[in-house]
C-alpha cells in the first residue's frame, strides 16, 4: 500500500530525513519509534503533504500513485489520514459542521452524493457507536477549549468517521493520562481492518501495550536503524535509544 524509498526531507534548509525506506501493506500496523528530534513527526507530516517540508530525494508510492506529487487534500481524498500531534483550533465552526464538510469532500471525490445534516448525523451515530463513544464533542467549536486528551480523542473520532485506508498517528499518546490512552487505543483497535494500514509514530512504548503492532521501526538521526516485531518495543523501553543511535553513526 505504501512504499517509501530513499526519502530525504529537509525543513528550512536543514536535512531531517536522510534516506528512509519503508514498506507498509494493507491491514498492517507499523510503529515508528525513536528519540526526540529523530524525524518521526517529519515523516508523518511529509506523508500528509505539509508545505513546509521539502523532499530532496526519494519516492513514496501509495496504491501505485506518486504520493509526493499530490496536494494534501488529494492525498486526504484518496484515503490518507494524519492524526495530528497538535490539532489546531477553528473558532466559530462546530465539530459536526467541520466533519460533515470533510466527509462530503471525500464523498464528492468518490462521486457519491453529499450528506445533508440529518443523514450525516445518522452516519456519525453509527461510527461513534462502533467505537463506543458519545457525541459530546460534536457541537463544540473545532478543538476550541478542548483539553489535551479531548483534542487527541477528536482526532481518532475523525479517523473513525473518515475511514481512511492509510492512517498515520503522530504522537497520539503524548499528553494522555492512562485512562484516555486506553480509550484511544481501544478505538484504534476497533478500527483495525484488513484493507486499512496504520503508521503509529510514538516516543514511548506504553501505547504499544494496548495496540500490538506488526512491525516496529526505530528512527534515529533521520534513518530507520532497526526494525523488528512487537518485542523490539519492549527492548527499547528497557534499554533506551542510545545504543541504537551509536549504531546509526557508524552505518
Amino acid at each position, binding site marked *: 500500500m505504501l512504499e517509501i524509498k530513499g526519502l530525504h526531507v529537509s525543513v528550512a534548509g536543514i536535512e531531517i530525513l536522510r534516506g528512509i525506506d519503508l514498506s507498509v501493506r494493507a491491514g498492517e500496523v507499523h510503529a515508528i519509534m525513536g528519540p526526540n528530534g529523530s524525524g518521526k513527526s517529519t515523516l508523518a507530516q511529509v506523508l*500528509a*503533504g*505539509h*508545505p*513546509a517540508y521539502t523532499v530532496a530525494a526519494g519516492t513514496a508510492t501509495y496504491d501505485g500513485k506518486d504520493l509526493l506529487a499530490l*496536494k*494534501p*487534500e488529494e*492525498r*486526504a*481524498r484518496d484515503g490518507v*489520514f*494524519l492524526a*495530528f500531534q497538535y*490539532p*489546531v483550533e*477553528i*473558532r*466559530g*465552526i*462546530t*465539530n*459536526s*459542521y*467541520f466533519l*460533515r*464538510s*470533510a466527509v462530503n*469532500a*471525500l464523498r464528492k*471525490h468518490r462521486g457519491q452524493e453529499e450528506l445533508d*445534516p*440529518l443523514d*450525516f*448525523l445518522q452516519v456519525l451515530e453509527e461510527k461513534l457507536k462502533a467505537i463506543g463513544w458519545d457525541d459530546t464533542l*460534536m*457541537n463544540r*467549536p473545532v478543538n476550541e477549549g478542548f483539553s489535551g486528551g479531548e483534542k487527541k480523542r477528536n482526532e481518532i473520532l*475523525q479517523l473513525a468517521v*473518515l475511514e481512511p485506508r492509510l492512517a498515520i498517528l503522530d504522537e497520539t499518546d503524548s499528553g494522555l493520562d492512562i485512562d484516555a490512552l486506553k480509550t484511544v487505543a481501544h478505538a484504534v483497535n476497533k478500527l483495525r481492518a484488513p484493507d486499512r494500514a496504520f503508521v503509529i509514530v510514538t516516543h514511548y512504548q506504553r501505547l504499544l501495550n494496548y495496540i500490538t503492532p506488526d512491525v516496529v521501526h526505530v528512527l534515529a538521526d533521520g534513518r530507520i536503524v532497526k526494525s523488528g516485531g512487537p518485542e523490539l518495543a519492549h527492548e527499547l523501553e528497557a534499554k533506551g535509544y542510545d545504543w541504537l543511535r551509536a549504531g546509526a553513526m557508524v552505518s
Partner: protein
Amino acid sequence: MTSIEAQVQQPYKYGFVTDIESDVVPPGLNEDVVRLISAKKGEPAWMVDWRLKAYRNWLKMEEPHWPNVKYGPIDYQAISYYAAPKKLPKLESLDQVDPKLVATFEKLGIPIEEQKRLTGVAVDAVFDSVSVATTFQAELAKYGVIFCPISQAIREHPELVQKYLGTVVPYNDNFFAALNSAVFTDGSFVYVPKGVRCPMELSTYFRINASSTGQFERTLIIADEGSYVSYLEGCSAPMRDENQLHAAVVELVALDNATIKYSTIQNWYPGDEEGKGGIYNFVTKRGKCAGKNSKVSWTQVETGSAITWKYPGCILQGDNSIGEFYSVAVTTRRQQADTGTKMIHLGKNTRSTIVSKGISGGHGQNTYRGLVKIMKGAEGARNYSQCDSMLIGDQCGAHTFPYIDVRNSSAIMEHEASTSKIGEDQIFYLRQRGLSAEDAVSMIVNGFCKEVFKELPMEFAVEATRLLGISLEGSVG
C-alpha cells in the same frame, strides 16, 4: 504571495459601466449648484433653505484628518454633484424603467421588474443621484408603511421629513455630514406607523455609475411607537482609475418600544492592487433610541471602498433602550478602513453591545475605533464590547482604538479584544481532511465572522458570505 493571500485577493465582480445617457451637472460646488439640485428634485422652499444653511456651515468647516487613513487632497470643485439617467419614468410606472437600468440591477442581482422581484423584500434602486424604482410601495401602503425615495417623501410627506430630518445627525454635525446636507440627492425614506411590524424586509441598492461624480445619499427611517422594521442597504460601483467620493448620511429614529434593524453590505469598488482608484466612503450613520424600551441594531459587512470612514452609532436616550453594533470589515489590496461605533448612554438601564471583526489581508489597514460614553443620568447602564482582528499575510495591519468615558459609577463595562493570524498550519489541517485551500480559508474566515453573520437577515446572509468568497455554515450544530 502565499496561497492564503491569493484567496483574499479576489477580482472585483461589479466593476462594469452602464452606457447610458446622463444628465450631469458640471463639476463644482456653490450656492447655485445647491439650488439647482433642489430645483431638479422639485423641493419646497424650506428644504432649499436648510441645504443652503448646511452649505454655508460647510464652507467654514475643515476636512477631518484624525482617522487612521492616508489619502491625497480632495478637490471638491472637481466633483459633479448630480448625475441622473435621462430617460426616467414616473415612479408609479415601473415597467417604463429604461431597460438598460433594469439590466444593470439585474446584473447586480437586484431584480426590479414586477415578475422577478424578490419575494418578501421591497427594493429601492438608486442609480447615481436618483432613485429609479421602488418595489412593493402599494403593498406596503396597505400597512401604512411609507417606503419611497427621500425626494418623493420631501414632496409628499413634508410634515414627517421636517419633523425628523437632521434631528439625529444635525446639518453641522461634521464636515461630510454638512456637505451631504447641502447636496444630498437620493436615498430612502421609511416610516412605520404605530404598532406595525413591517411585513417585509426593506432594502436600498446604491449604484454609482457616472465618472467624476460623487454620491450623496440620505436615508431617514422612523419607527413609530411599538413598530418594527428591518432594512438593508447594498452598494457597488464601476472600476475607475479616479477616486470617487461617497458621503452619505443615515438617520434612524426609534420611538417608544420600537425596533430598527439596519444592515449594510458595502461593496464599493476598492481600487486596484496598487491602490489606484476606488471609492472614498465617508459616511455618518446614527440611530436615536428616542423612546423607552426602543432598540437600534446595526449590522455591517464592509468589503469594499478604497477608504472607509464610518461609525454607525446609537444615542440611547430612552430608558431601557438597547443599541447594538455588529461589524465585519475586510481590507485587502491597499484598502484602508477606520470604522467602529459610538454608543452614547443617556437613559437609565440602557444597554449596548459591540462586536467588531476586522480582517486584513494584502496591504490592507484595518482600524477599529469605538466610543462608549455613559452620561451622568445613565443609571445602571451596561456595555459589552468585543473587538477581534484577523491578519492574513504579513503586509497588513490591524489597529484598535477603544475610547471609554464613564460618568456614572453604576455602569458595568466589559471589553474583550483579540488578534489572530490565519496560519499555514490551520489551512494544512483542513486540507488534510480533504478540503481545498479555498474552502479552508473560507471556513476559517466564516467561523471568525459567525457572531456577526448570524445577525443578518436570512436573505442577505447568503449574499454576505458569498461576498467574502465563503460558504455559509450549515444550520445544524
